[in-house]
């Protein structure tokens, strides 16, 4: 059955969109300060924008509602969205794999709007290819397991007080497990990385030197062995790819709005260029909504999520690089927000699998369905 993507007609979603839209201006006003000093969040923690994001709890809603909210928030600033205290991406995986107690533990740890959570998947040598992760959960008589390995490019890694770490207990595909761990700890070293953009996300490196992991820390114990590892991770990835696509769409919209408002008069050709850019953005927005609905219908289906992530990350880079040129030479130097959004837009390419990975997913899924049709 084709999902109905005329989501504008759904009253609840419309209300969420309006509420999120109301926070965008405050997020935008703080964006450059956080970009310059991502470690200095205290002045922003009680701001209307960050309090609004925490109220909306975007990652804990349905994928479609989250996508709608994230697009509006990212029209304010995606870097600020990712700088916001809260469960962040860890919330997605704990929802899929965690039991009630673990969900409560995460929610309690980040309640109050002063603490962050991390989701540690990516590694220096293997990227986000979870089939080749090297971080290990080694057996330990005292605690059950100890965590050893290095994670890299982890949002909130250096400031998170709780998070989920993906590791393996052995070489088999079923040995992939997710552990809910807390920080700081003597067996955990973290370092914020100096990134080109999306600096509010406080992307970090985390080194685990035998961090104790108890039985209650392992996610998925209440699930069958087949559903404790890769099954849940794949669902989380499908969900988060839609989130990334939504933020990319929102960033493209922010650039478009900014450029359009920066000049009073446009030539006919320029107006046509702006309209063409908006049509591109709108198409990817609809694709992202469609992907969100597909994930909500079945979190194991990632075809549309990969396609949306691929299209949206390309869109954001293209729009943020080309549209500012309409303001004349030096637009990126004269409009720091445009420069920031251009740097930020490049980050979407690297989050939860590059475009190459998404291309493989889209092609392989299509071929699989084509084979099924042929047989």
């Amino acid at each position, binding site marked *: 059955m084709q999902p109905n993507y005329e989501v504008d007609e759904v009253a609840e979603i419309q209300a969420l969109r309006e509420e999120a839209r109301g926070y965008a201006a405050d997020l935008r006003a703080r964006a450059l300060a956080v970009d310059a000093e991502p470690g200095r969040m205290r002045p922003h923690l009680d701001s209307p924008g960050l309090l609004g994001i925490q109220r909306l709890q975007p990652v804990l809603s349905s994928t479609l509602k989250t996508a709608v909210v994230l697009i509006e928030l990212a029209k304010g600033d995606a870097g600020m969205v990712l700088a916001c205290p809260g469960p962040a991406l860890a919330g997605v995986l704990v929802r899929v794999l965690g039991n009630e107690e673990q969900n409560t533990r995460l929610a309690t740890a980040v309640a109050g709007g002063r603490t962050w959570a991390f989701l540690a998947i990516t590694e220096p040598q293997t990227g986000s290819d979870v089939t080749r992760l090297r971080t290990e959960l080694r057996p330990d008589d005292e605690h059950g397991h100890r965590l050893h390995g290095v994670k890299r490019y982890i949002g909130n890694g250096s400031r998170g007080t709780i998070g989920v770490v993906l590791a393996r207990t052995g070489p088999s595909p079923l040995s992939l497990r997710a552990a809910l761990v807390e920080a700081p700890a003597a067996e955990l070293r973290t370092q914020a990385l100096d990134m*080109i953009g999306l600096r509010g996300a406080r992307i970090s490196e985390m080194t685990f030197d035998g961090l104790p992991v108890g039985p209650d820390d392992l996610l998925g114990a209440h699930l069958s062995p087949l559903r404790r590892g890769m099954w849940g991770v794949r669902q989380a990835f499908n969900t988060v790819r839609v989130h990334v696509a939504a933020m990319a769409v929102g960033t493209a919209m922010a650039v478009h709005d900014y450029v359009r408002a920066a000049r009073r008069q446009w030539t006919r050709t320029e107006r046509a260029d702006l309209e063409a850019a908006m049509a591109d953005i709108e198409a990817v927005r609809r694709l992202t909504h469609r992907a969100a609905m597909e994930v909500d219908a079945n979190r194991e289906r990632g075809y549309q999520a990969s396609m949306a992530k691929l299209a949206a990350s390309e869109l954001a880079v293209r729009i943020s690089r080309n549209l500012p040129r309409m303001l004349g030479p030096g637009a990126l*130097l004269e409009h720091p927000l445009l420069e920031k959004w251009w740097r930020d837009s490049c980050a979407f390419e690297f989050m939860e699998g590059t475009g190459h990975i998404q291309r493989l997913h889209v092609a392989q899924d299509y071929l699989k369905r084509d084979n099924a049709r042929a047989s």
Partner: protein
Amino acid sequence: MGAPLVHEIIVDELVAVTRAGGLAAGLRRIVDCGLPVPCAGSGRTLVPAGAAGRVVAWHVAGAELTAHQAAVRVLPHPLASTEGLELIEVTATQPGAGRPASGSLMVNALLVAVRLGLIAAMLDLAVCHLRGRRVEGLPLALKQLPQSTIADALASAELCRYAVLTAASATALDALHTRLGTTGWSLTILFGGSGYLRSHPARCLYVAELVRDAWVVPATVDS
């Protein structure tokens, strides 16, 4: 088609200088040619750190200011400084100073050569990176998708090198710079998340895009 702006010997030399020494080295060579450095309407532009004093003239808001007619102020720009450049703001020391600017086609053509040098250097680095990463037992450099990117980048760079030898208009040069930006981005992606670190050499491709932003008049504005 107008007369060629640059000879291939100059292009190849600039490519080699930049490939070996980086963005700042290439731009410093352009500055030392004695050509006016283009600025945005507000007077902002990027130049190699410490090179502003060697600039003979500036193009600001349609006027060509000699070094004596211009005041230069250095502004903070953390990303540009990691690549050995500085953001400066150029203003006329007296209202109405300078003569009408005659365009920056030559500088923009030379900037194409500089960006070709960066692409060559980053291509070398990307191939090295891809040889060191293995998937399913094979180096990434042997996988079809990365090879496709490498082939497209090589073809694009080669075409740009030929095109800059004949390009003679602002529109043509702007299109070349757009192409170089796309090619550079395709290479940046090959480094994965590491290419998004400020400490990674691929940052030169980001900073080069900022130099293009300041130096090259967009075709939409020019036409």
